[in-house]
């Protein structure tokens, strides 16, 4: 089947098998390998992307279901390597990653959180990340990163208000 959708602000039209998962479409067909696959039971969150602005597990989503929708992956967060999303900056600044495998999913989940709740508490961050497993960091610096990222986004939007 042919599907057309918006991916990282660009329109994409591709032919897919109905049984293709979005994670496979992104990684194998479109060669966007920033979205990772860490499990086969929909539990690890390495594959999280945004569907119409909400965080979803791309390993549990059929390509056919995203026809006409808007997707964003980790590759679509930054304007360029010197124009990172504040959450990317926060993860870097706070050592919120070690091996980097969980990181794309962590970023996408965290951004969904701060979009809904711009000033989350530590407890809210820890609960929100229930579906993102990290084996390296012990989560301590991830939580710190998300809180710092939220702060940076608040500061940025305050700046915008003034401008």
């Amino acid at each position, binding site marked *: 089947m042919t599907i057309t959708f918006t991916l990282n602000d660009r329109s994409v039209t591709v032919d897919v098998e109905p049984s293709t998962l979005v994670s496979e479409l992104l990684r194998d067909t479109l060669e966007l390998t920033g979205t*990772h696959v860490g499990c086969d039971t929909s539990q690890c969150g390495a594959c999280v992307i945004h569907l119409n602005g909400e965080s979803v597990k791309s390993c549990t989503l059929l390509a056919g279901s995203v026809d006409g929708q808007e997707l964003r992956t980790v590759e679509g967060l930054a304007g360029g390597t010197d124009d990172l999303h504040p959450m990317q900056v926060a993860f870097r600044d706070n050592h919120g990653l070690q091996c980097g495998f969980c990181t794309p999913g962590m970023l996408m989940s965290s951004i969904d959180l701060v979009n809904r709740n711009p000033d989350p508490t530590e407890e809210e961050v*820890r609960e929100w990340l229930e579906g993102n497993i990290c084996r390296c960091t012990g989560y301590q610096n991830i939580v710190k990163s998300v809180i710092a990222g939220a702060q940076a986004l608040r500061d940025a939007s305050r700046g915008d208000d003034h401008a």
Partner: protein
Amino acid sequence: MPEVVGVGASPKRKEDLRFVTGHGNYVADIKRPNMSFGVFLRSPHAHALIRSIDTSEALEQPGVKAVFTGEDMKADNVGGLPVGWGISGKDGNPMKEPPHPPIALGKVRYVGDAVAFVVAETVEQAEAAAELIEVDYETLPHVVGAVEALQPGAPQIYDEVPGNLCCDWDLGDCAAVDAAFETATHVTSIDLVNQRLVGNPMEPRAAIGEYDAANGQHTLWTTSQFPHVVRLLMGEMVLGIPQHKLRVVAPDVGGGFGVKQFHYAEEAVVTWAATKLGGAVKWVCQRSEGFISDAHGRDHVTQAELALDTDGKFLAMRVRTYANMGGYLSTFGPNIPTNLYAPLLSGVYVIPSIYCEVKVVFTNTVPVDAYRGAGRPEATFVVERLVDTAALEMGIDKFEIRKRNMIPTESYPYQTPVLVEYDSGDPLGCLERSMELADVAGFAERRSASEANGKYRGLGVSTYVEACGLAPSRLAGQLGARGGLYESANVRVHPSGAVTVLIGTHNHGQGHETTFAQIVSERLGVPFENIDIVFGDTDKVQFGMGTYGSRSLVVGGSALNKASDKIILKGRKIAAHQFEAALEDVIFEKGEFSVSGTDKKKSFPEIAGAAYVPFDFPLETLEPGLEEQAFYDPVNFTYPGGAHICEVEIDPDTGVVRLDRYTAVDDVGTIINPMIVEGQLQGGIVQGVGQALFEHGVYDEQSGQLLSGSFMDYCMPRADNFPDFTIKPHSTTCTHTPMGVKGCGECGTIGSPAAVINAVVDALRPLGVSHVDMPASPNRIWNIINNSGARAAAE
């Protein structure tokens, strides 16, 4: 302005930019021309004879290129997977080392043992075809526990290994220990289980084999912590590919924790299949497949005794452990519960004599090998549970008994009765600092507050010492290692003064690209951003033993330091020539060469440039170029240590143990990058707490199936399981590594399980509880509480 970023700084990590933007390059991300996909058919039985395998229908399926079995590999003279470290038993005889074919031959020995490999144009085609392979199994009785496997009449896993006993190993002076126990006023005995764990790095394993027939060149991309070792083991011993014709690449790897530190069957199978079929063959492990094919960790059953005198001073320790090896020996399997375990049983204490025997046993389970900490968490758990229990039994405060028996700081270097000599340490300093930070004094009040809420609160402490920086080759060789354990580094200074380092360790989260660059920046005065660290490719890096056992900084960093020394010496020679001065008069400081007592100076880039423009070099004594290589072989292990204190609160209604506070004070030697060290400790602690509270690889005795075979049933620690930790360094300097470093990768995992379980036992002490097995799951805790209630009611 590019800057020098040296030792003790915490710059942003060099590697992070590619990871936060989704541009990491993991094996599963790699596409090769003419690439096909392989899947393994794995045994559903724990123990069975393979009567026949019918692949005919599978072979007829669309897209299928080949179906390989163990017989096909055998017919092609493929060898078995080698063991990298052999051990010998009490009787001096070597361990039993049965063959380990990459694909099962005649018999399967665990659920997950590979039976066939299907290669097709797509993964879906290969999966569909695999379902059509008909294997005629004759199931045999199986055994999954090490103790059970030694019982008379237990199922025989190998004809050539009677009683399933791979090795009956021991260490220490048995007679001295027996004599000391005779004189003891108190003997504490405990039975422990150190449960089976599944390492689960978040990136599942993957491998791509490729064969370029025109050049006779083989390449393997693999999720490995040690590509050169894979090249050596697989090339020489399994496939017979000469080293210079085999390239092994381990690009970005998504966590290892030991799980990726073995040479796995799948690596050999894809490399061999690519040779047969041409082009590339890719295999990506599914998580549920990883659960039954990644080597597991731990799985000990232990009886331990501590003899004490009237003052609560330790006299001797006796330990007997049954170590489960699984169905085959994994690369380092037999070394972990022996050489990396028993030598740590002295902990940070003066224990005049220690005897440890270990029965290393085959069972019908996934092979067991190193998992973060590897042997040392097991030893620490034994020591610290013994000490805590002895304190309880003798009515001595848990801190007091530890202090009374600690190795005094002035006694370092300290020779233990179990082989190792600790060069440095300050266990008392660590303990006291941790008590302060954890506010031990305020615990009684917090406990009352919990009680008022109907909760139990407990405080637990664990000290630890570990041996890392694997390893002095001479000592390792005496202990059965079949290769050296040095590391190598090559420092290539470009004519601009920028530096590329080629190093044999492997970075899979530890931040080497940053830490190693800091070392070079400090030593050579080269701006941090002008330094790149290259690793993970046998065609680029000279040689190396990889990353495990907290060895990268200790051994690799020391090699790098040594290579930097050579660069400085060479630079001074060039400078001496240019300045027309004597070598002894040329000094190198803060990135500048100068002649003492003069104002002659040249910057590092100037000398680097000169090195490549040798118009007037005296070529007999001064070679052009500025590139040096060093191999570093440590003289001893390093011995990081520390003290961890935690508090838990238990809800008696549900049995849930909540970790409320965690404090760690660790002695990791010189700290190059504080941010990275703290990150390593945080992650390590969570893995150790994971073992104490959540994780368990459970086999069903009846069926031999792994019951905890996915994240639905294997409980991974999550963000909401933890509070914020307090982590502080308390370092002494290692006396034998050039920079004084000790390593920090495994500390967290080693110190934490006993701290947590001691806290749980402390919380339940009012109920008369003296031991709780790991994991302290809600059901287990509730059963304990419920039974003690029933006991109390009956009394």
